[in-house]
């Protein structure tokens, strides 16, 4: 009887230890997970292969409105909360959401730009609009890049390469 009780106790302890080991083994892996790289995609006809972070910031703040070929730049941005929008607002423009919105309201009000970035509600929509609209640019998860668009290098790096700055 005592041996049976001891066996049950050992089994219980072993189960707890196994569970704890499992949690310990999985938790660090989850925490170490890096955010996915965000790719900068442009319409296939845009004659740009690389942009510096500063150039990209000027594009997204509306200070640069034309590609070198003369095509007007059309910005497509995800609605708030999406990781791609956060990459534009926080990582690239170094602004809060409120500052980014106020910047674009002021930009249009100053007549420095005819309109602000156009909102899209899904990665697929962003991808499709960039594929269809000449001069368009958007941020999409690197894993979602398909055909019909061009991925632009940022500071000479493509998504997935070491040191790629947008994620």
């Amino acid at each position, binding site marked *: 009887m005592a041996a049976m009780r001891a066996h049950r106790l050992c089994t219980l302890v072993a189960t707890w230890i196994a569970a704890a080991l499992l949690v310990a083994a999985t938790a660090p892996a989850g925490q170490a997970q890096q955010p996915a790289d965000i790719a900068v995609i442009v319409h296939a006809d845009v004659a740009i292969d690389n942009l510096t972070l*500063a150039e990209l*910031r*000027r594009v997204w703040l509306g*200070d*640069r*409105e*034309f590609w070198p070929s*003369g095509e*007007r730049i*059309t910005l497509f941005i995800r609605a708030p909360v999406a990781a791609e929008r956060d990459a534009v607002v926080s990582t690239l423009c*170094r602004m*809060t*959401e*409120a*500052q980014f*919105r*106020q910047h674009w*309201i*002021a930009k*249009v*009000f*100053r*007549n420095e730009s*005819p*309109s602000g970035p*156009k909102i899209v509600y899904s990665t*697929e*929509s962003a991808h*499709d*609009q960039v*594929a*269809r*609209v000449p001069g*368009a640019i958007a941020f999409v998860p690197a894993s979602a890049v398909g055909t019909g668009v061009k991925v632009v290098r940022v500071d000479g790096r493509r998504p997935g390469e070491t040191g790629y700055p947008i994620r």
Partner: protein
Amino acid sequence: MPNLARVLVTSVTAALIAAAPGAAAAQQPVSHDPPAPVSQYPNLHISGFGDVNFSITDRPDGPRNFSLGQFALHMASALSPRVTFFGEISFTARTDAGTGSPSAAGFNAEIERMAVRFDQSDRLKVSFGRYHTPVNYWNTAFHHGQWLQTTIARPEMIRFGGTFLPVHFVGGLVEGAVPASSLNLNYKVGLGNGRATVLGRAGDAGDANDAVAWLASAFIRPDAYYGLEVGASLYGDTITHTSGREISEQIVAAHVAWQREDPEIIAEIASVRHRDDLTGLVTWSRAYYVQAAYRLQQAELWKPYLRFEHIGVADDDLAFATVPELDQLTLGVRYDLTLFAAVKGEYRTWTRGEGSVRNHGGYFQIAFTF
């Protein structure tokens, strides 16, 4: 007959279905194509700004208690990928805008800005119309949208209806931007009508004299100091004074603006040179202001600010004979109710030249955009 009726009904129904575009489209298989690209011209974007104010002051003149600020409507329209139109209309409450004698209170409607612009590239944009004169940073950064600016009021050197600097300009403008080794140099060059005989007004219906007003301004926004803007402006014109005398006017102005909110710093100075063409007398009048604000990190809806401003007018300046001097300190705080509405409260204390009485006032404003 029943067969004929059935055939007729069927035919009419089929014809109606075929004639209805929506219905016809509904007959087509579901398309997985994305929506058509947004390139319909002309397109129109309308936005607006408004503000309601409350003031308590020991000054004998000016508004008391509640007053409506400006109700501004802004219209921007792309006519093609390279041609855009914009317009700005304001409605301003005034004590003398109504009819009768004495004048009744009412609203004054005004076309504040209206221009059509051709964008050749980032380096070259050409426009014609009525602008806020780019001889001053505040005048072109905040326009009539009180919500956009941190403080309740504009600096007096560039207040609407003021005289010190020409707020509006009617004519043509060439502008653009070049990277210039990451300095991002922007320029504006313009020709047009100068001030009207009433100096606070622009030459909307034609110039007051044959002399053409000109302006040139440039500023940089260096990549290395993101948020910084440094610029300078020149402006020249000949004023026809109400007395009929002609006065040459040249304005030199400079500004520094750190546009981040941690902190926000704006400083401007403008010197106005007048030369009376009859007597040859030359005078210089100067105005400047320094404004600092800081968006609190722990309570980011709050943004305290302060501003000091000065207007000094030369004693013999005939054109500015009615321009009051000013030394004013403003202390205030802005609280952003939502992304699109803010409440501001501020205390101002000021004097109007040596020996004048010191005034004090408390001001409140709710400003919004929609």
